[in-house]
């Protein structure tokens, strides 16, 4: 069973819909008790980092997430804000601590002339290394849908599995043990995104 965390940060229904469409058992998690009952955890979300961490903390989810993902090593997928929240810190509207599973800072995209921030729309990925979720062909992956102004910047470039170029190259996907995260929205990326979610739902437990 895949658990999608609802912490009041945007449209989570689309992620649930995608797993249902793929005929994968999925449930919505609203408290820490729910986390222990699922095999895989998805943290989606759109919005500000500080608010996202506050909601997770207020719901008492932080310790339970650390336990299930870091100790019990359940496969975890962070999407968009969910990718940023697993980082050590963010500089969005101040300075905030994140879950800290990946030694990374969340920074604002640098606006290049003629490129608007947020980065909104379909963009291509360059695959950096072999990984479980993004197969790709010859280092390319079909276009995926992005909506964001900030990106995760890890200290160890080895965790980055795919990058996107929007005036500057930024990590679009990372993978570290049982932890997966993507800056784009697989649930809004047509077949390419559904294929990725299917890989996640069928991925081994890495136990």
């Amino acid at each position: 069973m895949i658990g999608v965390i609802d912490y009041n940060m945007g449209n989570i229904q689309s992620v649930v819909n995608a797993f249902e469409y793929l005929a994968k058992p999925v449930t919505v998690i609203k408290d820490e008790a729910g986390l222990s009952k699922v095999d895989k955890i998805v943290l989606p979300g759109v919005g500000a980092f500080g608010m996202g961490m506050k909601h997770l903390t207020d719901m008492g989810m932080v310790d339970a997430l650390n336990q299930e993902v870091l100790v019990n090593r359940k496969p975890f997928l962070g999407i968009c804000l969910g990718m940023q929240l697993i980082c050590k810190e963010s500089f969005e509207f101040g300075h905030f601590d994140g879950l800290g599973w990946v030694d990374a800072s969340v920074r604002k995209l640098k606006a290049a002339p003629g490129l608007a921030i947020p980065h909104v729309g379909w963009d291509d990925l360059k695959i950096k290394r072999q990984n479980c979720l993004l197969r790709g062909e010859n280092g390319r992956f079909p276009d995926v849908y992005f909506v964001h102004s900030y990106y995760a910047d890890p200290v160890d470039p080895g965790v980055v599995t795919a990058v996107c170029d929007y005036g500057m190259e930024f990590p679009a996907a990372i993978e570290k043990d049982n932890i997966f995260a993507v800056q784009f929205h697989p649930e809004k990326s047509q077949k390419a995104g559904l294929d990725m979610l299917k890989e996640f739902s069928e991925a081994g437990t890495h136990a």
Partner: protein
Amino acid sequence: MLKRRLIPVLFLKNGLIVRSEYFNYHQNLGNPVSEVKRYSDWDADELIYIDISTEHYYDLRRDDLRVSNKGNILDIIRDISRVCFMPLTFGGGIRTIEDIRLRIQNGADKITINAAAIDDLSFIGKSSSVFGSQCIIVSIDYKMVNGRAVVFKSGLTETGMDAAEWAADAEKKGAGEIFLNSIDRDGSARGYDIDVIKRVTDAVSIPVIACGGAGDFHDFVDLARSTRVSAMAAGNIFHFTELSYQRAKDTLLKNNVNVRK
């Protein structure tokens, strides 16, 4: 590289999909829920639904639709979002923060506001501070009046505002995108209104989605080549031409417009 988007726009009236012409003639094209499979098969970049039944558009036809569906826009959103895995925008009749919340909860990613933003400019900022500006599209309907592109509220009431100036104001207040629709060209198949679209895209730095006038696939190419629009949108052409979405994409790609394959 970021792609230009090609977006089908579907107009809903009393729960049914209609074809729109000059904002005042609406031909019934079918039920959005029974046709939902078709839209997911289009593999579109994005879909925009505008519910025109709650606005006071003048309808020349008798209102003889058997189903009275005024309240079912949320059901429609839910059914579509279950099978369409692309960004979904819903607009029409949105007046309050609660209107937006309900649409997002049921599967919308973005919403458009039109009259509510004209009546109260601060509504743009209020809604983008709650949902994020990426979620708030300000829709602008305009008509040429003595050589000026004048904004019409809900496509109906002349406001006297200039379309480009209004777009710039909307951006300042927190709009995430502009949806620009020419009333004069609606359903006309005369091509896009390049001059006005260019003025509006030059006035803002947020993405502009241009709509109104696409008559054949080369109109998309012309629009992409001669303006900075982020997205080319159209309604009728996708309904009345076989395999039109894919063929439009092929035409754009053949003409070196940077779109998603």
